[in-house]
């Protein structure tokens, strides 16, 4: 089915990223940042534009588009469960974000736009899709919360998870400009045309 299987530690090196091709599966350990709301991206990019220092290290980071239940109990953060968030919501902000902060990997669901694919190719970044809707399965692959940054942003705070072989994740968009979605999209267009014509 898939061509190759990899296990990597975040932050991924450019060699790690370039060795991946669309169709490969990957398991990721190490840190990943939950950054999945439009206001988070806008605010983090604004900090850079103003020339201010970020309280977190995003260079070479793994970004996790995830929808999560986390809570702070007696001063300690814990994760209850989490799953993949629809990445397309962030199509507009992602290219600038990849370029500004040198992002190496995005974990999410459903893939992103051709503009994001272009920025990924330029900046050597890979898109890893989780199996949609499978919160219970993938929650087992999250060790816990390493840190929470920008708590003053409320629900837009940035949670940094520690992953333990989070996977299988499917490389659906690679750093060579390839995407698994394009072919399906073409077939889908042809199919709907045929179905509609058949009705006449």
């Amino acid at each position: 089915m898939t061509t190759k299987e990899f296990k990597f530690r975040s932050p991924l090196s450019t060699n790690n990223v370039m060795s991946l091709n669309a169709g490969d599966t990957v398991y990721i350990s190490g840190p990943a940042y939950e950054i999945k709301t439009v206001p988070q991206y806008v605010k983090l990019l604004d900090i850079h534009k103003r020339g201010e220092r970020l309280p977190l290290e995003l260079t070479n980071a793994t970004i996790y588009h995830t929808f999560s239940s986390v809570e702070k109990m007696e001063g300690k953060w814990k994760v209850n469960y989490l799953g993949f968030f629809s990445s397309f919501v962030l199509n507009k902000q992602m290219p600038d974000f990849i370029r500004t902060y040198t992002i190496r990997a995005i974990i999410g669901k459903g893939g992103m736009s051709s503009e994001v694919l272009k920025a990924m190719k330029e900046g050597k970044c890979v898109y890893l899709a989780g199996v949609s809707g499978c919160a219970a399965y993938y929650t087992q692959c999250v060790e816990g919360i390493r840190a929470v940054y920008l708590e003053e942003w409320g629900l837009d705070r940035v949670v940094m998870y520690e992953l333990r072989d989070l996977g299988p994740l499917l490389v659906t968009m690679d750093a060579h400009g390839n995407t698994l979605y394009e072919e399906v999209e073409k077939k889908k267009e042809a199919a709907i045309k045929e179905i509609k014509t058949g009705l006449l």
Partner: protein
Amino acid sequence: MIPSTLISKGVAEAYKRAITTLPEDVYDAIKTAREKETNPLTKWGLEIVIKNIDVAKEGAIPICQDTGIPEFFVKLGTKATIDGSIEEAIKEGVIGITKSFPLIPLAVHPLTRANTLNNTGYRVPLMHYSLIPQADYIELTAVPACAAPQTFSAVKMYPSGTPITEAKKFIYGTVHNITGAVCPPLVVGVGFGGLFGTVGLLAREASMRPLDVRHPDPEIAKLEDELLDSINKLGIGHMNLGGDITALAVNIEIGHTHSPCFPVAVQIQCWCCRRVTVRMHEDGRVDQLR
């Protein structure tokens, strides 16, 4: 008299079960899809989906991270009495399970987008009421409503005289429009008739019918099969990566409509097709129904 505390408890129990276990008919349909699928990527994905459903059930972990906007279909026995407000009791149940489980707080104001942090708000939880003649109990179906399939559902108000082929094109087009945000294989609920305010509800109820039950009218059951067949020809597959199985079932519900109107609604539902029904009695019993 049915204590309102029992209703709150029943709501919390039903909701917890709804987000952590899938109905047998849906589970079986996903397993059959896995067997039949010839696209290796989709088959691979469905393997994980099945493992995920098993892990969720064992560990009482949500199957899907989108634990939903709480929606309830409530059937009141006409002989049932309650020691308080049923709406408040349902709301209390939601607030309780949100805190104790905990659920992700998802209810926001439509314009300010402010989150109430307890999954309730204006007209949330969503409550639909109907009656059961002569019964002295209350039946409640919890249907957590997740975001992506809601976003890609659609309503069309055609004038009468519009050929059914137009409605079919609209249904196929609606499914065709889904993006990777939605998780096929889908359950597609279709509503024909009613009026603007009710056709969406027909489609919603259609998506709640067990997948192994066809519409009692053979003509409509035939249409369900035809729609399913064509939707699967779209080749979207699980995770939008291609495949033979884009939908597990198409269910239709109909209502008579005004003579110049032809309303059509399509409720998109992901494979995580959650519903749990409980029956609550005066003596404090809470039965789990299918």
